[in-house]
C-alpha cells in the first residue's frame, strides 16, 4: 500500500479550501482514494491554517501526522506544521518560504506563474496543476474540473485558469521525472464513481432522509454547515429553515414545530446547546420529539471555536433539569453518520423523546469517499394519530407511550404543558398522579433499550486488550490497530453512547486490559461506562489540544502502554 499525505498551509483567505475542494475532486476522478481534513483558526483573514489531503491506493479515512509533501503559502507555514514534517518532506513553493527547511525543497513561484497565465489570482490553480502533474492525473481531468469550477465566470477567467493549471501541471510532471520521485500510487477504476462527502453532508442528508422539514438554529462553528446545507435544500425538499435570534429561540421553535407535526431539528455546538438546555428539559416533559445535532468543539465557554474535541458527552447526558429519557448517538463511521442522523428522527417520533446526535469539528469538516448510500431499505413510519373527541395527550399506557396527536388533525384537543400535567395535559398538583406520570415517562426508557445500536468489535474476538472509542475517532483507531498488527488487541466502537448497550460489561470483563481513547481531558466515556456497568477502564489515552488524534499518535500511545507493561 502506498499512501501520500499532502499538507497545504497558509493564511485564512489565501484559498486553501478552494485548492482542497478542487484537488479532492480531481484526485478521486483520477482513481485515487482520498481523505481530507482541515484545521483552522477562528479568524477570517491571516493566521495559519492547514489542510491535509491523504492519497492512497486503498481506502483511507483518518488523519495522519506525517507530511510527505508540504505546500506552504506563506512564511509562517513551515513553522506552523513543523511538528509534523521531517527532513524527507517534499516542500514546494516560493523560495523564501521553503529555503533550507528540508532536504527536498523545490522552488515553484505559484504567483509569478499565475501572473504569466494572466493574473496573480490564478495562483491556486497553478498549485492544483503542480500536484496533479506530480500524481500523474490526466490533464483533461484537471481541465474539465477547472472549467466546471469556474463555470459561472467569463471565458477569459476560465481560459486563464486552464493556462495556469497547465503551467503548474507541466512543472509537476517535470519535478517527479527530474528528481526521480515515485509515489508508487496505483489508480483504481471503482473509486472514480464514489461519493465525495463531508461529515456535514452526511448529517444533513441523513436528516432529510429522516423526514426533517423544520430546522431552526443560530450559527455556531462547527455546527453551522448543517443549517447551511438544509437552507440550500429548502425549496427542493420543502424544508422550513429559519435562523433564530438565539439558541433559546431555536429550540423553542423546533418544539413548537414538532408539536404541530413537523419533524424538527436544531444544530448547535456546546455554548449554544447550553442555552438550549431548558428547552431540552421542556422536550422531556412535553414528550415532544426533537433532534439536536450537537457539533462539539473545545470548551469551556467559547473555548477554541474552530477546533475539535469530544468534551460534551457527559454534558449532553445530564443536560436538562428533572428526569426524562433521551437517546444519544455518536456516529464515527460514514454510513453511521448518515443512518443514525436519519434514525434520530424516527426514534424521536417513536418514543417522543429528544435525540442528540454528537459529532465534532473533525468529523464534520473532513471529506470522505463513500461507495454509495443505500436508500432502498429506508422507510419512515408515521407515529402520530388522528384524534377523537375524548383524546388525552398523556394517556397513561402500559409502555409509557401515549398516542401523540397533532393540533388540527382530528376532533380532539392537544394540550401540552411545561407544568406537571394530568392526562389531558392541564396543570395539576395531584401528587399521586405526579408519581404515575413520571413513571410513565421513564418507562419509555425500557422500550428504548430494546433498540440500542450495538457496539462493533473490530479485530480478534479472543482479544486480551480491548480498546474502546466512540464517535469520530473510529477510523483513526481502526487504522492504528491495523498498522500495529497486534493480534491480541481488538477495538470496540460505540455509535450509540446512551443508553449504553447491555453487552458492554461482557465485552469489558473478557479483556485482560481495557483502554479508552477519547478526544477530551477527563475520559468522559470511561466515566459513563463505569456509571452504567460498574467496570473501571484500566487506561485512558486522551487528547485535548484542539486537534484530532493522528494514526501514528495512537500507535505510539498503545506501544507505550505495552512497554510499561513489559517492565
Amino acid at each position, binding site marked *: 500500500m502506498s499512501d501520500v499525505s499532502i499538507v497545504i498551509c497558509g493564511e485564512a483567505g489565501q484559498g486553501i479550501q478552494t485548492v482542497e475542494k478542487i484537488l479532492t475532486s480531481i484526485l478521486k476522478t483520477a482513481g485515487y482514494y482520498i481523505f481530507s481534513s482541515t484545521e483552522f483558526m477562528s479568524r477570517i483573514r491571516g493566521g495559519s491554517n492547514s489542510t491535509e489531503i491523504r492519497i492512497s491506493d486503498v481506502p483511507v479515512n483518518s488523519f495522519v501526522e506525517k507530511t510527505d509533501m508540504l505546500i506552504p503559502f506563506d512564511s509562517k507555514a513551515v513553522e506552523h506544521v513543523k511538528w509534523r514534517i521531517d527532513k524527507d518532506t517534499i516542500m514546494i513553493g516560493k523560495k523564501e518560504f521553503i529555503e533550507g527547511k528540508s532536504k527536498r525543497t523545490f522552488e515553484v513561484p505559484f504567483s509569478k506563474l499565475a501572473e504569466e497565465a494572466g493574473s496573480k489570482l490564478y495562483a491556486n490553480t497553478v498549485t492544483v496543476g503542480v500536484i496533479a502533474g506530480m500524481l500523474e492525473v490526466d490533464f483533461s481531468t484537471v481541465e474539465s474540473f477547472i472549467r466546471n469550477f469556474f463555470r459561472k465566470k467569463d471565458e477569459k477567467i476560465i481560459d486563464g485558469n486552464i493556462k495556469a493549471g497547465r503551467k503548474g501541471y507541466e512543472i509537476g510532471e517535470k519535478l517527479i521525472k527530474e528528481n526521480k520521485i515515485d509515489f508508487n500510487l496505483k489508480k483504481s477504476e471503482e473509486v472514480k464513481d464514489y461519493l465525495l462527502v463531508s461529515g456535514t453532508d452526511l448529517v444533513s442528508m441523513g436528516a432529510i432522509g429522516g423526514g426533517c422539514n423544520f430546522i431552526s438554529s443560530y450559527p455556531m462553528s462547527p455546527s453551522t454547515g448543517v443549517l447551511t446545507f438544509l437552507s440550500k435544500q429548502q425549496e427542493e425538499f*420543502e424544508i422550513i429553515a429559519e435562523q433564530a435570534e438565539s439558541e433559546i429561540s431555536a429550540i423553542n421553535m423546533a418544539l413548537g414545530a414538532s*408539536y404541530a407535526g413537523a419533524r424538527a431539528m436544531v444544530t448547535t455546538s456546546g455554548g449554544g446547546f447550553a442555552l438550549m438546555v431548558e428547552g431540552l428539559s421542556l422536550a422531556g416533559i412535553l414528550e415532544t420529539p426533537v433532534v439536536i445535532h450537537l457539533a462539539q468543539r473545545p470548551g469551556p465557554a467559547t473555548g477554541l471555536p474552530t477546533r475539535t474535541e469530544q468534551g460534551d458527552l457527559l454534558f449532553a447526558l445530564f443536560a436538562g433539569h428533572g428526569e426524562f429519557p433521551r437517546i444519544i448517538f455518536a456516529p464515527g463511521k460514514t454510513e453511521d453518520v448518515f443512518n443514525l442522523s436519519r434514525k434520530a428522527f424516527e426514534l424521536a417520533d417513536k418514543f417522543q423523546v429528544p435525540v442528540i446526535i454528537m459529532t465534532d469539528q473533525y468529523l464534520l469538516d473532513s471529506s470522505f469517499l463513500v461507495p454509495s448510500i443505500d436508500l432502498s431499505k429506508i422507510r419512515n413510519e408515521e407515529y402520530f394519530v388522528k384524534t377523537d373527541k375524548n383524546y388525552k395527550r398523556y394517556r397513561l399506557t402500559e409502555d409509557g407511550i401515549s398516542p401523540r396527536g*397533532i393540533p388540527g388533525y382530528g376532533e380532539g384537543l392537544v394540550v*401540552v404543558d411545561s407544568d406537571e400535567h394530568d392526562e389531558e395535559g392541564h396543570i395539576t398538583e395531584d401528587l399521586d398522579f405526579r408519581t404515575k406520570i413520571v413513571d410513565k415517562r421513564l418507562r419509555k426508557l425500557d422500550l428504548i433499550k430494546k433498540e440500542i445500536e450495538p457496539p462493533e468489535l473490530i479485530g480478534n474476538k479472543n482479544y486480551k486488550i480491548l480498546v474502546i472509542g466512540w464517535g469520530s475517532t473510529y477510523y483513526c483507531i481502526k487504522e492504528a490497530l491495523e498498522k500495529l498488527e497486534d493480534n491480541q488487541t481488538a477495538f470496540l466502537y460505540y455509535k450509540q453512547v446512551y443508553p449504553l448497550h447491555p453487552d458492554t460489561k461482557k465485552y469489558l470483563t473478557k479483556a485482560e486490559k481495557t483502554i479508552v481513547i477519547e478526544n477530551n481531558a477527563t475520559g468522559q466515556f470511561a466515566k459513563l461506562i463505569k456509571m452504567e456497568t460498574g467496570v473501571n477502564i484500566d487506561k485512558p489515552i486522551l487528547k485535548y489540544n484542539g486537534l484530532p488524534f493522528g494514526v501514528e499518535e495512537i500507535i505510539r500511545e498503545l506501544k507505550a502502554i505495552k512497554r510499561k507493561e513489559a517492565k
Partner: protein
Amino acid sequence: MDAKIYEMGKIDIAWCPGCGNFSILKILKDTLSELDIAPEKLVMVSGIGQAAKTPHYLRANVFNGLHGRALPAATAIKAVNRDLVVIAESGDGDMYGEGGNHFIHTIRRNPDITNIVHNNMVYGLTKGQASPTSLKGFKTPVQVNGVILEPFNPLAVAIGLGASFVSRAYSDDMKETKEIIKKAIQHKGYALVDLLHPCVTFNRFNDRKWFKENTYYLGEEYDPTDRNEAFKRAIQTDKLPLGIFYINKESMPFEEKLTAYKKNKKPMFEREVDFQKLSNLIESKRK
C-alpha cells in the same frame, strides 16, 4: 358559534378574586365565538405566570411552554400548519422581560399570530416584584426604594420595528377590548394587544381608578396607518391612549414567504420525504 363551546366546565382557576384576568378570559371566549373559530383549529400558546395560565381555562389546543418562550413556539406552530389560528398569550414579565428578545424578533419575523400581553405592571406569580412596565417609584419587596428603571414601552418598540398591528386595550372595557382583539385576530400578520389590567393583590398603585383616570381612546378621526402619529401616541405617558395604534399595510406574514409552501400548500405533518430527490442529491456527490 356559541361561546359555551370554549367552556371547560368545573375547573379550579388559580387567579385572585377580582383579577382583571377573569374579564380577559370572558372577552377572549366571546371574541372567538363571534369569529367562529373552532377549538380544534385554535392553538393557545403561553409561557409562565398568572396570565400564562389562561390557555388552561378555555377549550383549545394548548402549548404552555417555558417562561418567556411562547413567541418562538407560536411562530413555528403557525409556520408548519397555516390552517391553525395561533394566539400567544402571557403577561408583561413573560413577554417583555424574560422573552424580550423574542418580542423584538417576532415583530421582525411577522408571523400571522395574535400576541395578547396581560399588562398589570407587576409580577403576580412571584409575588409582587417590579415588571418591565412598572412605573418609576413603584415600591415592591425587591425595589424597596421604588423602581428606578425606565418602564419598557412595548408599543413604541413595536411601532419602531414597523410591526404589523399594534394596539392597547384595558380589561374592564369589555366591549372595546373585544373589538380590538377581534381585529387583531383577523389581521394577517403579527398583532400585538398590550392589554392593561389591574392586579388586585400586588399592584395597589395602578388600580381600577388609576386606569380609568389615566387612559383615553384614540378617536374615530385617528388614522392607524400613520406611523409617525402612532409613535407620538405610543410615547405619550401622561395619559395612556387605548385602541389600534398602528397597522402596517405592507407587511406580509412570515409563513406566506416560506419556500416550503411554494408548490405545496399542505401543512408539514401531511408531507413525506421525496426519496427520489434525496437519491438525486446523493448522486450529485459523485461528480
